[in-house]
């Protein structure tokens, strides 16, 4: 369903991604792990074009975009691709001037043009799904971090994305709030939602992902099924990285 070919991202002289190839099937949950600054978040942000790739190809179903230096991609094509993705950010980025339900309704109404009453019932369904229907009239700053992140997940799901991109969804949370967000993501994984998750929660990645990619210095070092990658890492770099975590 998703096919990324030779994706390169440079910021000035700094090469952040040096040719990434990734394929994701429908319904698959892909976890991306790696040290800080390895480019894993940048990769995710390239997929919905919050960062414009320097070169390479991204294919998402029938949207195919090929990037080259100095080549301008028409806005319409960028939005067509982006419309198939949803994103959950590390620090939530809920709209503070809207209630929880308005946050979820905003995209469907403004972007998809569905009626307010349909958007409302859609929002109610999704808020029940993430367990926050009773908070529907609260404002984001009245919620805990974990609750905000679950609303952010509902907001992304409201656009019915083909693939949900999660950028370190639990990194900004207090330890006791991580669990509720992981539970929500786990539910999505058992459903049919295709997801790409950048995470530091290795135990969670292992449990929930169908496949894991280890990225370091802008390159894929190793990929495989969780059991293979965690129990029998092939590359020295992967072993080092995993050891550091298991020692903790």
């Amino acid at each position, binding site marked *: 369903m998703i096919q990324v070919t030779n994706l390169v991202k440079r910021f000035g002289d700094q090469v952040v991604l040096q040719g990434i190839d990734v394929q994701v099937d429908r319904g698959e949950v892909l976890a991306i792990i790696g040290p800080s600054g390895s480019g894993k978040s940048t990769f995710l942000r390239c997929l919905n074009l919050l960062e414009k790739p320097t070169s390479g190809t991204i294919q998402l179903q029938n949207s195919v975009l090929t990037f080259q230096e100095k080549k301008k991609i028409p806005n319409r094509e960028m939005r067509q691709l982006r419309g198939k993705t949803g994103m959950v950010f590390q620090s939530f*980025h809920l709209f503070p001037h809207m209630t929880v339900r308005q946050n979820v309704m905003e995209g469907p109404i403004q972007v998809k043009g569905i009626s307010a009453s349909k958007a409302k019932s859609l929002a109610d369904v999704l808020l029940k799904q993430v367990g926050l229907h009773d908070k529907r009239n609260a404002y984001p700053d009245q919620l805990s971090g974990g609750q905000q992140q679950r609303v952010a997940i509902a907001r992304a799901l409201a656009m019915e994305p083909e693939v949900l991109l999660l950028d370190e969804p639990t990194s900004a949370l207090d330890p006791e709030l991580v669990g509720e967000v992981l539970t929500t993501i786990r539910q999505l994984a058992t459903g049919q939602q295709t997801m790409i998750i950048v995470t530091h929660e290795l135990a969670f990645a292992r449990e929930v992902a169908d496949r894991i990619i280890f990225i370091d210095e802008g390159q894929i070092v190793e990929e495989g099924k969780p059991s293979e990658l965690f129990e029998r890492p092939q590359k020295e770099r992967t072993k080092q990285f995993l050891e550091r975590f298991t020692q903790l």
Partner: protein
Amino acid sequence: MDAIQWENLFDIQLAKGSAWFVFQGLKYTIIITLITMIVGLILGLVIALMRMSSSKILRYPARMYISIIRGTPLLVQLFILYFGLPVIGLNLSPFLAAIIGLSLNVGGYSAENFRGALLSIPKGQWEAAYSINMTYGQALRRIIMPQALRVALPTLANTLLSLVKDTSLLSMITVPEMLYQAKIIGGREFDYLTMYILVAFFYWIVCTILAWVQDRLEDQYGKFAK
């Protein structure tokens, strides 16, 4: 030096008798302020967005505009429009010259207010808006502006209070606003002091009302904040 003549400080009879005449000028003050406020704020927002654009063709003219407006006296700008332009055959009525001059002025100052406010909104808000596939216009209108307006409100209110008071400069280009009216009577009755105190009082009332409106608006927009 003679003793100060306190009895001439304020002639209540004159003030009462001429209050209505001066009050006539308030109509111009209010109409010009309202029109200028609307035109100026729209202009200011457009200039702010141009100033923040990644395109040089938009950015440089906006910077130049802001620099000129903020770097030259409003009175000189008004003189150029009203007394200067007829030299090249452009005859503006006092009223039109006033609207154009003040709108350009408000535009220049509020552009910087807007820019500061827009920059104060975290980049993540733009990204979140884009992530649900909003266009630039939708993100600006639905997500960024409602938050930025709240930030900008106190400084915009200051700009608008200045605007009310700056309308007094229009007396210099023969717009019959409050100060102009007060000067007429002051000259006729040889009592400028009473008339200027009276007109100062009127400006103060108008500005106090506006400050009250500002407080209400801040309460309104502040709802989502703790």
